[in-house]
């Protein structure tokens, strides 16, 4: 069974800078891959390489076994790969409904007339709890709604592979749970999902595997709990001295100390930050 998404040695250079260097991942249907890393690690660039905004200088992108390396964004969409953008890109002059309908009109298999697409859009909006704001303009939405609109636009394409680029950004902890539940649902429905995040809670709660990027390269790949406790990852995010201090404290406390997840990102409600 070919993987929904596979990249092999995917790389891009801008002049002398290797923004993404030799990333190889596989995502099966119904699996969630988390991608984390400090700012500038190349996470969004990695997504852009796969979804066609940037051409890779080396490597391959395979969607369901088909080679789509360097294909234009609309060809990628036609292959049922959908994405959200880190900085939301709504169509400001269209209603929320029409924003979502665009994807159904052009990206979903079989396309659709305006009326049919609007029907699909209504379904998607219903699922994401946005029916109430369907008539509004995107600029009138709250942050939480705006983030969900971004996801809705992607879902309108009926994707097989879904990229969520910092879909939790700006959300309060209470607003995050519905978003996470949605991801779990989509996973159950068989989508292959790639989640780029800074919010470690999200990573821990929905990802099957986590890829850690640093300076364009893969630092580590593995299950969330392992990865988030790994010293190299802590070093990458918080620096060497902190990692050493953590190691010392953990040794004192007998092996179970705070991991990266507890230091980076918003706290789940009710918990207080561990001392140190």
């Amino acid at each position, binding site marked *: 069974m070919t993987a929904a998404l596979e990249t092999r040695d995917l790389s891009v250079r801008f002049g002398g800078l290797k923004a993404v260097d030799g990333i190889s991942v596989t995502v099966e249907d119904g699996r969630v891959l988390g991608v984390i890393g400090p700012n500038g690690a190349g996470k969004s660039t990695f997504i852009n390489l796969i979804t066609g905004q940037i051409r890779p200088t080396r490597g391959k992108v395979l969607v369901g076994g088909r080679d789509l390396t360097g294909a*234009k964004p609309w060809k990628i969409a036609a292959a049922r790969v959908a994405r959200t953008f880190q900085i939301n890109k709504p169509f400001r002059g269209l*209603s929320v409904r029409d924003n979502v309908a665009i994807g159904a009109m052009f990206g979903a298999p079989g396309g659709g007339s305006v009326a049919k697409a609007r029907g699909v859009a209504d379904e998607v909006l219903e699922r994401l709890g946005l029916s109430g704001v369907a008539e*509004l303009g995107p*600029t009138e939405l709250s942050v939480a709604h705006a983030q969900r609109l971004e996801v809705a636009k992607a879902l309108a394409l009926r994707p097989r592979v879904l990229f969520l680029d910092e879909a939790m950004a700006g959300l309060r902890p209470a607003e995050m749970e519905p978003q996470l539940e949605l991801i779990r649902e989509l996973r159950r429905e068989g989508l292959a999902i790639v989640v780029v995040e800074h919010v470690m809670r999200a990573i821990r709660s929905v990802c099957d595997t986590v890829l850690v990027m640093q300076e364009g390269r893969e630092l580590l790949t593995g299950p969330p709990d392992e990865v988030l406790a790994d010293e190299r990852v802590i070093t990458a995010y918080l620096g060497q001295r902190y990692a050493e201090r953590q190691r010392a404290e953990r040794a004192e406390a007998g092996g179970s100390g705070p991991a990266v997840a507890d230091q980076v990102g918003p706290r789940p409600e009710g918990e207080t930050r561990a001392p140190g």
Partner: protein
Amino acid sequence: MAATSARPGMPESESESAHPELGAPTTGPPKAAPAGRTTASQLAGWALVLGLLVICLLAPKLFIPSFLRTLSAVFMFATLAQAWNIIGGFTGYPSFGNVVFFGLGGYTIAVLMARSHWSFWPALVVAVVLGAAYAMLIGIPTLRLKGHYFAIATLGVAEGTREIVLNVPKVTGGGAGITVPAVGPSATTSYPGNTGFLYYFLALLVVAMLAVYAIARSRFGFALRAINQDEDAAAAAGINTTRMKIAAFMVSGAITAAAGSIYAFQQVSIYPDRLFSVDITVLMVIMAVIGGSGTVIGPLVGGVGLQFLSEYLRQNFTDYHTFIFGAIIIVAVVLLPEGAVRFASETVRQRRLPIMDNLRRYRL
């Protein structure tokens, strides 16, 4: 670094109706309007259109010949503005070289009729096809550019094409121009005269209006608007932006070429400087924008309004008319940056004159 939209200054809140009906702008989310009122205003709109159409059809009976010529010019410019609207207004690619299709159309007619003794109608078909083809040709490289760059590139192509036409006198007559055989034994098609041309231009205008109206409510129109508002997101949503842009440019080019063809036949003698004049480009842009780019009736309003204004000024202030026209353009751009149609619908919606709103929104 903040993500920049290729078109800075996109206004924040667009709260206009998305119903692509005659009177309302086609960008912006729909308003919850009471159903009865919409139907009534729609009916009123259609009634108005029908009434105007009837007047136009009766024009030769109602008006003097010089006014018929003015009316023909009004129809022609409204058509040009509407054609520009497709690529500039809906798609958001401000072409400053659309006159190249106008000139191409005109010269195709002239060359085919004068040199090869074609009659007008087959030549018109060729002109329209050539207009579309040329749009595809120059669209492929230039539609990769955005904003100012696209504007200048198209301007450059138009000027360059004019130069080329100027420099192949054997075909085009060069700087001396070329004359369409309109009277006497060599005339292949009888000259339609004032009335005939009035109807030709009116028919073309109706075609252009129908085209834009159809585009506005179609998938194609949605694609163009999506490209206009966020090209990256449009591509990610599955829109083949390259194909759509070129298609829009081709439609624009075809209609513009048709206008140029009829114009050439009407003028009988044409010159490169006139047929490829930058002034025509700028006029069509101004008409579309001041009327309301991206709307269905905006360019019609702009074209009609500004052309009549221009005629009036020309006749009554012969020495100063361009000066005054320039001043009016400045005032209109500053006060109505969204165009007259949107201003009107905002006025109706807010029940006040939102003049200062525009100023506040766009000034530094």
